[in-house]
Each structure stands twice: as C-alpha cells, then as structure tokens.
C-alpha cells in the first residue's frame, strides 16, 4: 500500500543507530529526564547516561551509558523523540488516542488518566479498529485538510483496563511502568487518513456527547502536554503565527466533548455511546 510522503519521511528520520553523541547542544549541562532543541537538532537525556540525539537528515543516534535502562529505551524513542522528529519536520503531534471508521479518524484527547487508551481499546469490541495510542501525528501540509499518520506506538493498558476492554494482553511495557502491551479486539489501521473529529474526554455523572463550537475550539487546542511543548519549541511561532496556526486547526477540526462517569459499572454504557457517535453518518 502506498505510504504518504510524511510517513516515508518519519520512517527515514526515525531510523536508529547507536554510538556516542554530544551531551549538550547549547553548552549548558543537560539534566536527566530533560531535553534541548537547537538548530534543527534535538537531544534528550533519559535516566543516567542514556542520550538520544536527532539531527534532520541524520536520523536518531542513541548512546547507552553503563547505567542506561534499556527497558525504557523504546518508550523514549516512541515518545519524546518521535514527537520531536515530527515537530522538527513540520508535523503536529497531539496527545490523543484514536480509532478509524469509514476512512476517517476519530481521536480522543484528555489529560493522563482520562481513559484515552482504555476507550479506544474498548471501541474495538464495537468493530472500530485502533488508529493510534497516546500520540496522534497530524500532517498539515495540505491547507484544505488535516491528515493523520497511523500510530507508531503499541497499545498500552493498565492491568485493570485489560479486562474492561477485551484487548489481548501481551508483555509488560517496562520494569517501571505498570502497563502491558495489548492487541486491540478489531486490529489496527496502518494507513494515513483524514481527521474526522477530535473528542475531548471529561468526567461527569451522566454520559453525553456534545459538539464544541466557536472560540472554545481554539481554547481546547491550547495544550500543555510534552508534545505541544516540543512542537512550540520546534516551530518558534510568534504570537500572530501561533494564533493563525490554532485558528486554522479550530476551523478545520470538528470537535466534541464526551462526558461520562469514571465508574467501572457504567463503562460499557459510555463506550456504546461513543461507538454510536463515531458510527453515525
């Protein structure tokens, strides 16, 4: 199947090699669990002496010091490093998990713990395949539409979410993360698709889905997730350009609010509502 130019670029730019890398881009010492972005390059330091360097055109180089936790490496590569590579190449990573239906992507966003992964996994039981987990990368190169790149991360679920969703559990994510990889019940979609709707998850006593209109769409796009910080650092928009960027997204992305109780006994009720919403013509 043909892959989009953005997908091919990401495949090329996220190719990993191993070797020594500089331990700072700016000259300032880089603390553990922090990053620097400078002149088209990105340097991340994980725990201990575990460094990840990306330079445009050169791909990613990983330096594993003696105390590097290798079990965390794929999490860094698929998390901050992938989002930084996307951002430095004009793509927009957002904090969302998504399913696909009828050639469009329906993405669910919310803070950590809002239930994004659990919801998209459970939508698999309603015949909706997974599109991505945790990070959705948007290709904005066509001014007329917003296209989503298929997910690059494996679905991760907490132990209690495995039973709720019907996903098939796989190995533990890492020594320190209390999640398992999982296979969604209806499989995954691996092709780029236009974005159908961005749906924000909130907790309320009764399940409901309501459209978001007007200025609130723009407000909703102001995110403080690490993906947004990486994009801001890469693009270096001034206020006017940042506003124009958000306004374009607000105009082109249909949005809704999905409210439901975070109550295991009513979980299926909320999932069924979301499934009907996604499947409606």
């Amino acid at each position, binding site marked *: 199947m043909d892959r989009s130019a953005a997908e091919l670029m990401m495949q090329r730019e996220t190719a990993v090699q191993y070797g020594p890398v500089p331990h700072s881009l700016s000259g300032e010492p880089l603390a553990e669990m922090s990053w620097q972005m400078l002149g088209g390059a990105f340097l991340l330091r994980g725990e201990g002496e575990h460094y990840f360097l990306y330079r445009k055109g050169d791909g990613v180089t990983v330096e594993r010091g003696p105390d590097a936790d290798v079990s965390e490496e794929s999490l860094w590569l698929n998390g901050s490093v992938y989002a930084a590579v996307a951002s430095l190449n004009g793509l927009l990573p957002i904090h969302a998990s998504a399913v696909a239906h009828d050639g469009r992507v329906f993405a669910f966003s919310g803070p950590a713990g809002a239930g994004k992964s659990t919801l998209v996994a459970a939508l698999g039981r309603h015949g909706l395949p997974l599109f991505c987990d945790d990070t959705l990368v948007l290709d904005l190169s066509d001014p007329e539409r917003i296209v989503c790149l298929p997910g690059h991360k494996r679905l991760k679920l907490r132990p209690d979410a495995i039973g709720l969703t019907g996903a098939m559990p796989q190995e533990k994510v890492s020594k320190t993360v209390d999640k398992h990889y999982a296979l969604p019940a209806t499989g995954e979609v691996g092709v780029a698709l236009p974005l159908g709707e961005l749906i924000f998850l909130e907790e309320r006593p009764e399940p409901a889905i309501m459209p978001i*209109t*007007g200025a609130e769409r*723009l407000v909703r796009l102001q995110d403080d997730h690490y993906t947004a910080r990486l994009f801001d650092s890469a693009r270096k928009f001034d206020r*006017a350009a940042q*506003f124009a960027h958000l306004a374009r997204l*607000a*105009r082109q992305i249909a949005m809704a609010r999905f409210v439901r109780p975070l109550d295991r006994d009513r979980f299926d009720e909320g999932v069924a509502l979301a499934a009907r919403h996604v499947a409606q013509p």
Partner: protein
Amino acid sequence: MIVTAMAALAKRTDRFSEADIDEEIVVMMLDTGQFFSLSGTSAAIWRLIDGQRDRAAVLASLTGAFHGEEQAVTKDLDEFLATLREMGLLVD
C-alpha cells in the same frame, strides 16, 4: 482627543489578529496573547468597522440588520465602541 461624529471608524490592525470560527470572531491581542470572542451584535459591529464607515453609517447598517431596534442598537454600539477604545483597538 476629540473624535468627530463623521470620523470613519478604523481598527488598529497592528494590535490584534482575528479569525472567524463558526459564527464567532476570535480576536487576539498581540501584546498580551489574550483573546476574546465576539458574536451577535458585537460581531456585526466589528465587521462593519472597516475604515470607511463612520458611527452613523455603522448604526444605520446595524439598525437595518436588527430590524429597527434603534435605541437598543445605539446603546450596544456606543458601549462596544467605548470598550474597543479602552482596549486601544480603534484608531483615535
């Protein structure tokens, strides 16, 4: 400064960015990054401030658009113009 009744109303376009989103106009102040949204009468007034129309022309257009509720429209117009002047968004 005295603004005459015949002076055309013009926005300080160097001080804001704006975008139409659905039926609303979102305006962002470039000096602070804060933004606000306009709808209904205020959005209609904002659109009519084009550097050509003076207050009377804006009022006439509004009165036509809002079916002759002149007293209420006049109040809305003057209050909104005062707010825009306070915010430094109108050319003096």
